[in-house]
């Protein structure tokens, strides 16, 4: 058994809990008793949040649409295709024909890199996220 400190993935309260793991599988949560936000408490979503992590419906491999169908592919293929198409569209229609939607659910570091990718690598300020929705 191991306990790892994480932040609840649901609302904006930012409750802190330990994920309880057994052999690289999440089996439960334990609220942080010392964190001043939640002080050892959680709501129903927090207490049960471990469950979706192990869902068999999780995406485990890249998918690329072929003949109209999303088909399993390799990372190389998916990433090569993504970048080639982004660059083609950019050179045909300009940087502002590209749009990027960041996420209110991923980390600060990831939002920062995503924003940097849109602006530095693809030269567009067309970046927003669904926070307001």
């Amino acid at each position: 058994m191991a306990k790892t400190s994480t932040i609840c993935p649901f609302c904006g309260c930012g409750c802190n809990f330990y994920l309880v793991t057994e052999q690289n599988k999440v089996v439960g949560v334990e609220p942080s008793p010392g964190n001043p936000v939640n002080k050892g408490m959680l709501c129903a979503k927090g207490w049960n949040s471990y469950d979706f992590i192990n869902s068999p419906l999780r995406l485990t491999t890249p998918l690329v649409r072929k003949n109209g169908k999303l088909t399993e592919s390799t990372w190389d293929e998916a990433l090569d295709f993504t970048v080639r198409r982004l660059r083609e569209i950019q050179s045909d229609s300009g940087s502002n024909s590209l749009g990027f939607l960041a996420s209110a659910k991923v980390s600060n570091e990831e939002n920062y890199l995503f924003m940097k990718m849109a602006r530095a690598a693809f030269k567009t300020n067309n970046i927003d996220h669904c926070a307001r929705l």
Partner: protein
Amino acid sequence: MAGLAATFGSGAMTNSINEMDEAELFFVIGSNTTEQHPLIGTRVINAVERGARLIVVDPRDIPLARYAHMHLRQNIGTDVAVLNGLMNIIIEEGLYDREYVETRTEGFDELKRIVSRYTPRVVEQISGIRADDLMLAAREYAGTGKAMLLYAMGITQHTTGTDNVKTCANLAMLTGHVGRPSTGVNPLRGQNNVQGACDMGGLPVVYTGYQKVGDEPVIQKFSDAWGVDDLDKAPGLTITTMMEAADRGELKALYVMGENPYLSDPDSKHIERALSNLDLLVVQDIFLSETAALADVVLPAACFAEKAGTYTNTERRVQLSCKAVDPPGSARADWEIIQDVCARAGYPMSYADPSEIMAEINRVTPSYAGITYPRLEMGYGLSWPCPNEEHPGTAYLHKDRFSKGLGTFLPCEFKPMAEPPDTEYDFILTTGRMYFQYHTGTMSRRVGILEREAPEPLVEINPEDARKLGIRDRDLVEITSRRGAVKIKAEVTARVPRKVVFSTFHFHEVPINLLTNPAHDPVSGIPEYKGCAVKIRRCA
């Protein structure tokens, strides 16, 4: 956000959660706090039990209203009128904080002029709130030293959302309730890293820490930091305008990370058309969301448990989350995927782990400069602004001066909702969330217990309306707006006032956003989820 930034100079919760334990009064408007921010809602309940006063302004009879000393149920979309009415009374009766207004603010005369028209009688006609109640509420809020104003998406999700926010800020400044402990204007953010996504510049007009994309020194700083010399200086498109551009064929590629706009955005038919009109749709997510199912490329991502990173909560507290397990299959952390995309795009990045990314954020973001991994590992997070490594973080903002100097009163006139009910579409549909589900359900609907507790969407309808329409509890009804129709089971309840129906957007089986109005606030781009005209009938 835009509203608060214009008034105070920065857009975020001004005070912190722990200060609620000392507050003497809560003014909660447009926030179903116990269901949407449970551990903040319970702070309010506990405060009331120890003697704090509670004023709830909400059309619905939300659970928190059971604790309210006053529950003002305004007509949907009349928040500006209600808040102006409160200020009218406060000025009229001389209850405002003169010294504060003189020394800390500007624009009072204009505020006075505009709110002078919102007499209690006028406001009663617009909002349905009795003039006497409004007067009592105004006196209580103005007369209490430690009064915290809390709001959430009931304020922002209107075509007048920015006006609503500015008006909340006006009310707080007028009474001197900003810049002191246990006061302030406190937007409760709905998702665990909304604040962070905004702070990190996931917005078309700003870089990290709200540094504007058009400012020369800012452009220079980021050009140097990123080793590029051709950053775009013009503001980009918001999500709402991106969808419109995609519909017109001007936006051709969209790269979506961890969002599900197909279910979350208004007028789903329009979104589907816009997304299918794209030449390229890339979706990076942990599940095959409704949006991912439309994509050309789907990139499997790690969830919060499977990577390290920081998240910024609603009170600006940046907290570290550690990696507990490996991602499933060949899924990878979002930061690793982005790094790979950039490498292929000829813009290589070489961060070994998220702490190195944070080190760069520290360098380019003054408000995050002192929020480093070693410090986060040793404590329970740091609230920005935190300008250096010795700084303890900031519990409440605007202590002696506003971020922009003087706070500016930005008075607004009441404007009716974009699509008021008429004889055909005679009900107002307002949308929100349930306690046991979350956003588009991508995560919460895959949690057995949550799905058991809230397995299906319902539309709340007032018993009197239900009786007239021959609708009984759990009857299947059809709700139709100018944009679409859905069939959904009715919950007959007095939680909603007459002529208002309420539902949620968690369930793909009943995509309520087929109905909602994409008309949006001109500044923030936030659509009017809180009100559109619909008609309702019982399915035969």
